């Protein structure tokens, strides 16, 4: 009984963790299903069909590659613009700082539908052709603030004396930035880029409003929820989960080895 009281937090925490992971388990298990009708919601029998033929559904892999392309360019754009803003905010004083801060904060505090709907009114008023470019513009817009926040946190905790030391050793401003500042800020920039990629790749609401007839992967999943869900969706979901976990584990191993060699 005392043991139970002492470990109550642990038990409650593990229940929450199970709640978080349960859908992923279901997605994985049902990627081996052989459904009877058009929907993959009920377990029928074990089959490897979907794993052998992941692109067997019309248009699905096309939408997946479109999503990857958009996520790549959105990450690049948002990371470049966001890193510049973060450096300006931490390193310099300038007028209208408060206004800049709220302009960064507001997109994160705004429901996605509101941003999606208002951006669509802009595009409609400008007569813009909805498609790849409007999606990319929207994605860079909402990823930007998250990159700024991630990079800012890292640059703020940086020791300014390291850069002074570089200057003492006769490094020019460019050399100091490339050889000292950038390597130290890199983890923050990487975290921001990773966040931007995940946000862009997974975005549905804003994309749905501004895509026109272009179909990204989340939009394909949404459409299939109405028409019938192919098992291949679960295959992609499971594969992405595994790849992400493996990448993170590999990153941790490399980090650990680096720490060991340093110390």
């Amino acid at each position: 009984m005392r043991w139970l009281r002492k470990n109550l937090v642990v038990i409650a925490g593990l229940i929450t963790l199970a709640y978080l992971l349960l859908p992923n388990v279901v997605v994985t298990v049902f990627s081996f299903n052989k459904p009877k009708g058009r929907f993959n919601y009920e377990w029928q029998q074990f089959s490897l069909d979907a794993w052998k033929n992941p692109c067997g559904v019309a248009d699905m892999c096309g939408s997946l590659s479109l999503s990857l392309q958009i996520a790549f360019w959105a990450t690049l754009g948002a990371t470049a613009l966001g890193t510049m803003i973060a450096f300006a905010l931490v390193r310099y004083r300038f007028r209208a700082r408060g206004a800049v801060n709220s302009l960064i904060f507001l997109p994160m505090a705004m429901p996605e539908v509101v941003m999606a709907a208002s951006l669509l009114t802009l595009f409609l008023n400008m007569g813009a052709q909805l498609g790849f470019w409007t999606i990319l513009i929207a994605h860079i817009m909402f990823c930007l603030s998250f990159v700024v926040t991630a990079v800012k946190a890292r640059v703020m905790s940086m020791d300014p004396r390291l850069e002074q030391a570089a200057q003492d050793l006769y490094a020019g401003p460019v050399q100091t930035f490339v050889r000292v500042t950038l390597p130290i800020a890199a983890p923050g920039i990487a975290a921001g880029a990773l966040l931007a990629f995940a946000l862009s790749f997974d975005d549905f609401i804003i994309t749905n409003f501004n895509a026109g007839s272009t179909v990204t992967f989340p939009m394909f999943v949404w459409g299939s929820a109405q028409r019938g869900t192919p098992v291949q969706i679960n295959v992609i979901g499971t594969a992405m989960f595994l790849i992400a976990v493996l990448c993170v584990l590999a990153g941790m191993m490399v980090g650990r080895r680096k720490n060991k060699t340093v110390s």
Partner: protein
Amino acid sequence: MSTVTDAPPAPPALPDKPRKVRRRGRLVPYWLLLPGILWLVVFFALPMVYQASTSVQQGSLEDGFKVTWHFATYWDALSDYYPQFLRSVLYAGCATILCLLLGYPLAYLIAFRAGRWRNVVLILVIAPFFTSFLIRTLAWKTILADGGPVVGALNTLHVLDVTTWLGMTEGNRVLATPLAVVCGLTYNFLPFMILPLYTSLERIDGRLHEAAGDLYASPATTFRRVTFPLSMPGVVSGTLLTFIPAAGDYVNADLLGSTDTRMVGNVIQTQFLRILDYPTAAALSFILMAAILVMVTFYIRRAGTEDLV
């Protein structure tokens, strides 16, 4: 914020050189800010202005829309769709409270009790993100299926009797009821609660717990008087990060709910993309934005933490 334009004070060890750099570098921050801020002004702030103007327009798709300062659209939108507004606040509120109740123990576990498993548990919290959230939300259709093990267990434990009495479920079903929507919202936004909670809990000095224990505080008192107050910044930003997106969400209400669980996001989406009634959609979206900004400001004032940005 004062309007000082100088660079930060020059380091004492460098006498002459940085001063020159400083004068030349006066415009640097503006060049750094320009592209990103321009992007946000054109594609975030300007659309808000367009939306405000659209909401007071009248007309049809064929004849075009004109600004007529027709504020009645707002009144009509509110009186037609107030149930959806109330539902959004109610469902998002329930989901936020559930997220806090479920997320706090896990954040506490990661911060204080996980030991060398800490990184593993953190990865497990973030990892589901990499499977598209639509796929994961669809998985809830399987989990909560009629006659499935989850519904059966809830029935045996008489949980469904309670939720039916509360009006959250109907009969022996969970799917297509408000409970399913709240359950999906809670699931989807739980990591947004856990991560800020973890960040603020992790900052707490472990010696404070020891000190509280030395002063004869029971574990419960320690939590109530020391740990919880110190984690307030995490609680505030966590609740905001869950409530705001949950209130605007329409994916869970669409996939897991029924026509009786439509939220304001569903209405905006249909008006905008299917019915093409732009003024009503713009007015609804503007009301949602204003309501959330008012609630957030009030909440931050009450909670007394203003250093969230």
